[in-house]
């Protein structure tokens, strides 16, 4: 009998602490979804909580679909999604664009190709162009790196480039970070990722002659750009509205810009 009482006590103790601390818990807003936006959301949440001591903000990842689902089910107050076009089931949600994000095409530092046209990108990702020679590089076969089906970055990329039927040889990576790692390690790889995550271990190529830079995106010359949505069930109100308003304020947008994203407007 001894054996069984101990864990029971633990569980009861657990519940007790849970409820006792529930009383003094402050109001918490939960936001969930896009992994691409998660880091920026964390930063914004920190700043917001500095200004509003009575509100807690919890940020969860999970992906854009999780963002949509949890906003629909009420598991989160705010869903975060980074898709060019929202799926039909998100129709009932109220969507606010809070930022934009450029999608950069990246290659290994050793690669001498510096520019690709949209058609070339389409050809490479569809498996029609198989060798770097064809687009002005060395005589090496291309390792195509893409994202998983459903990824906001991938669907945005494919929606803008158009007519991609992804080659079966493509390596699939499930995050911006790993796409970057793969391209860093493989001299013949090509990938795409969120503009804010480009670093000096990889080389970014221009698309149609335009480099992926904040200015070019704001001017509308760089074409691989997708919006980032905050989704709420019905129009945002109360604390949630307060938070979204903060993100849209000049202070919030400044944070977004300084972290490498593009402001909403």
């Amino acid at each position, binding site marked *: 009998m001894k054996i069984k009482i101990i864990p029971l006590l633990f569980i009861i103790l657990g519940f007790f602490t849970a409820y006792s601390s529930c009383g003094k818990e402050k109001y918490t807003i939960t936001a969930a979804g896009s992994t691409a936006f998660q880091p920026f959301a964390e930063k914004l949440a920190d700043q917001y909580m500095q200004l509003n001591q009575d509100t807690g903000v919890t940020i969860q990842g999970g992906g854009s679909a999780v963002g949509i689902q949890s906003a629909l089910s009420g598991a989160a107050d705010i869903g975060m999604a980074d898709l060019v076009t929202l799926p039909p089931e998100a129709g009932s949600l109220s969507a606010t664009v809070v930022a934009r994000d450029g999608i950069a095409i990246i290659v290994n530092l050793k690669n001498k190709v510096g520019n690709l046209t949209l058609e070339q990108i389409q050809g490479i990702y569809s498996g029609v162009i198989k060798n770097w020679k064809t687009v002005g590089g060395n005589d090496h076969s291309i*390792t195509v790196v893409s994202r*998983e*089906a*459903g990824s906001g970055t991938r669907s945005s990329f494919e929606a803008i480039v158009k007519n991609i039927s992804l080659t*079966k040889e493509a*390596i*699939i990576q*499930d995050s911006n970070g790993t796409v970057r790692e793969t391209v860093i390690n493989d001299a013949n790889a090509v990938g795409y990722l969120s503009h804010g995550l480009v670093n000096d271990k990889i080389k970014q190529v221009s698309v149609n002659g335009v480099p992926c830079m904040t200015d070019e995106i704001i001017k509308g010359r760089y074409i691989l750009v997708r919006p980032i949505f905050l989704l709420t069930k019905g129009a945002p109100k109360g604390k949630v509205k307060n938070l979204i308003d903060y993100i849209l304020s000049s202070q919030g947008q400044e944070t977004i810009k300084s972290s490498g994203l593009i402001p909403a407007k």
Partner: protein
Amino acid sequence: MAIALSAITMLVLIVLFIIKEGLPFIFKIGITDFLLSTDWEPAAGKYGIFPMIAGSLWVTLGAILVGVPLGLAGAVFLSEFIPQWAMKTIKPTIELLAGIPSVVYGFIGVMVLAPLIREYLGGPGLSIMAASIILGIMILPTVMSISIDSIKAVPNSYREGAFALGATHWQTIHMVVIPAARSGIIAGIILGLGRAIGETMAVIMVAGNAVKLPNSPLDSVRTLTANIALEMGYATGMHRQALFATGVVLLIIIMLLNYIAMTAIRDRGKKK
């Protein structure tokens, strides 16, 4: 009684949940189209998981080829030829390795193993071979530590009996000790097998996840688990059902493997 029932109910709940979400989809698409088609393009409504089935089987087979001989040899050596005091440090080390998160193994695979394979053997590096080796290493501690336990549980009188009949130490091991410890060893292998076929994160990191039928161990593949985990975060509607259906297939494969393993135990038991 109540405890046993509630534990079992919990387990049944999960299975029913997966089946309920996945099975209707399989019938809607058609079993042959779902299982045997090689096209997986959820955006275009194409849901064929044959490449993933092949991927899972290859990678698991590879992991078994790497992990089981090494694990068994290690277990036999450590429990039969090593003094007790040395065992006292080695066994905890092995169990420690069982606790290292799979993502760490996966990360090492990406940083160390994949570049080696790409450099010396060719291909993209992220491949069946990389995944097999990493998974094989991951299941080593499980296979080893359970095998050691069951070898240790063989009564010493068995060994003494064999020695007394003039058997060498090795004959004693493979004719007396291993058969006596068989049930435990197989349990260990099944656990290892389960871990290999069910592993997700490490495989996603090192297998490359390309949706195609592999031609060589250096090709990139996607496993069933990777298929689920990669797209789960985004999938909705049909796509999500397709992933649950992938889960059903995975479950059936695991059941088949277990069934084969169990019949193997029983048949060998009969021969005796």
